[in-house]
């Protein structure tokens, strides 16, 4: 069936909820309204208000309650309406979700998923366009996943829900309805921790994820580039990146988040150490500026555009 990412995520949720009655959904407007992006549309009607819970406006409470449910034995899937509003719940993620297994030496675990739309793309008000993935990548115990297509959105979310540790599942709002693609009705899983070669190539390696993957690929036209769709940001697929970089000798990481201490830094640092000697050119990062993510009028100036990305490709090739 042809689905956009909204449909694919909805299908994954429905599939997991029918498979396992311990899977429950909670968040603001996820029930009756089906979510502000309609991602949970129809699920409350189908599975009942006991399993698809509209909550009060309380991000801390939503995540804290999810932790309680996960520790109890359920598999909650919490929705935070936009990533810019997850900060109020960060103590719950860092100090509890990511630590419960360690703190109790395995007696209690925290198999929960936090879904949230992320990134620039819908010309929404302030703080509706954040790309704060790096914060969560820095926190031990937590996994971070970002789909780039309807197909991998379904397979990755199913894996995230079945994972026995907390997973932050970041949904590029720009892609929600941008791509319609064939998505199998039957169940399939895309393993966490594995990237995907989006395009093979010989001259340089490009690492990207989510919405920027498509910009990075668009900008790569005319280059013999190997493009890696990271899919899981934490832990990321070291082997895939290394084998590609050792082949190409060049690496460009593209992300929307501000550059300083972004995930691009970790990938560049890792590769520069692990593939030292293989590199024919400096590892380049194309990233958001050292600036507050602007409102709609300047959005497109903030996030790396084709020109900026191309320039980086040319630089590493000319090197």
């Amino acid at each position: 069936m042809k689905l956009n990412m909204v449909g694919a995520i909805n299908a994954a949720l429905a599939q997991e909820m029918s498979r396992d009655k311990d899977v429950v959904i909670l968040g603001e407007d996820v029930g009756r309204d089906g979510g502000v992006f309609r991602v949970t549309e129809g699920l409350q009607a189908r599975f009942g208000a006991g399993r698809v819970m509209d909550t009060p406006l309380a991000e801390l409470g939503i995540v804290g309650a999810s932790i309680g449910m996960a520790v109890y034995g359920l598999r909650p899937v919490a929705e935070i309406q936009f990533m810019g509003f997850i900060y109020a719940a960060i103590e719950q993620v860092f100090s509890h979700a990511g630590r419960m297994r360690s703190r109790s030496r395995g007696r209690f675990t925290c198999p929960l998923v936090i879904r949230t739309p992320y990134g620039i793309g819908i010309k929404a008000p302030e703080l509706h366009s954040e790309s704060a993935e790096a914060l969560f990548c820095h926190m031990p115990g937590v996994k971070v996943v970002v789909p780039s297509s309807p197909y991998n959105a379904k397979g990755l979310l199913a894996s995230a829900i079945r994972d026995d540790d907390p997973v932050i599942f970041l949904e590029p709002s720009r892609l929600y309805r941008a791509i319609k693609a064939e998505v199998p009705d039957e169940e399939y899983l895309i393993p966490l921790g594995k990237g995907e070669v989006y395009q093979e190539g010989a001259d340089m390696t490009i690492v990207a994820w989510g919405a920027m993957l498509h910009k990075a690929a668009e900008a790569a036209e005319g280059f013999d580039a190997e493009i890696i769709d990271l899919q899981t940001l934490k832990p990321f697929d070291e082997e895939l990146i290394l084998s590609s970089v050792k082949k190409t000798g060049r690496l460009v990481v593209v992300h929307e988040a501000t550059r300083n201490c972004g995930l691009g830094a970790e990938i560049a640092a890792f590769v520069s150490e692990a593939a030292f000697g293989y590199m024919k050119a400096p590892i380049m990062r194309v990233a958001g500026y050292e600036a507050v993510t602007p409102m709609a009028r300047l959005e497109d100036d903030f996030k790396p555009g084709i020109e900026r990305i191309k320039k980086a490709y040319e630089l590493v090739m000319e090197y």
Partner: protein
Amino acid sequence: MPTSVIGKIVVDRLQLINEQGEADASRLTHLPESVYNKFFETITLARLYNQRALSLQREGRLGTYASILGQEASQVGSALAFDPSDWIIPSFRESGVLIAMGYPMHLLYRYWMGDERGMSCPEGLNILPMCVPVGSQLTHSVGVGMGIKHRGEKKAVGVYFGDGASSRGDFHEGLNLAGVFKLPIVFLCQNNQWAISVPRSAQSAGATIAERAFSYGFEGIQVDGNDIVAVYKATKDAVDKAKDNNGPTLIECFTYRLDDHTTSDDASRYRSKDEVESWKAKEPLIRLRLFMEKKGLWSKAYEDEVIKKASEAVDAAIKEAEGFSQPQAVDMIRFTNKDLSLRQKRELEELER
């Protein structure tokens, strides 16, 4: 010995003009008639501004917009109780509050067009930028209140938030701190019965939001938020109390959001036409008009004149807003820090190329 009563709390509701426009004269004597004209004219202006914002959005000339239809009494009535030099801390739906405070409408439009320059408050006013993370502005009022106390100024802080915001931890920490430090703050809860699709009944099992104030050691009151006179009176009393160093007050304005949550929402998915209709009958302007007519303060001619003036002001504001140049990309970096880092300087150069 066993159970002894150690506390009693009584929660009041204030209404001064009922839906038929009838008033309790005894309690209004203190108000000069010109105030009612001010109410009428400001609500009219705010409503016109709002109508135009909605149509501009439909025409693609404005971004996502949050309508204030139905809440004008709660917004305008409360705002007019403050002095221009007082501090106002709005949520994202406070267009009516800002207009009543004298905030330039063209800046408001500009903000909703997705331009930060729209939230650069003119000197002379102390209005913080609209706050998007719901409820997160509440504790800022505590700090401003501490500042006012520190400098010994005779000013009040008005902080606005919704019924949804009242479920956030920020509400609790903000009100508790305000009580502990006895700060000059008026907490204005705009209870419009909905937080997007979540009704007030699902937001909290508590009977009122107003009653929470007592457990923080100060007074709370619920007012008929569609009765602008009651809203004004309750707020004025709270502002005076604040300036007399008698601490904070929580006012729950009981009103209703007549439009969709924002222009990207479709409220018909989650609430009934009947509910909306029943509230339309209670909307603030009808009542104010009836009341003023009884007092001989309203006539068709007067209303026409007010509307004419308001439309001219709104037209001018839109013209000015649309006359703005596109903001410069470099501004996003230039306004991130006062002193720019080397990286920021390199990025500026890249942008200027």
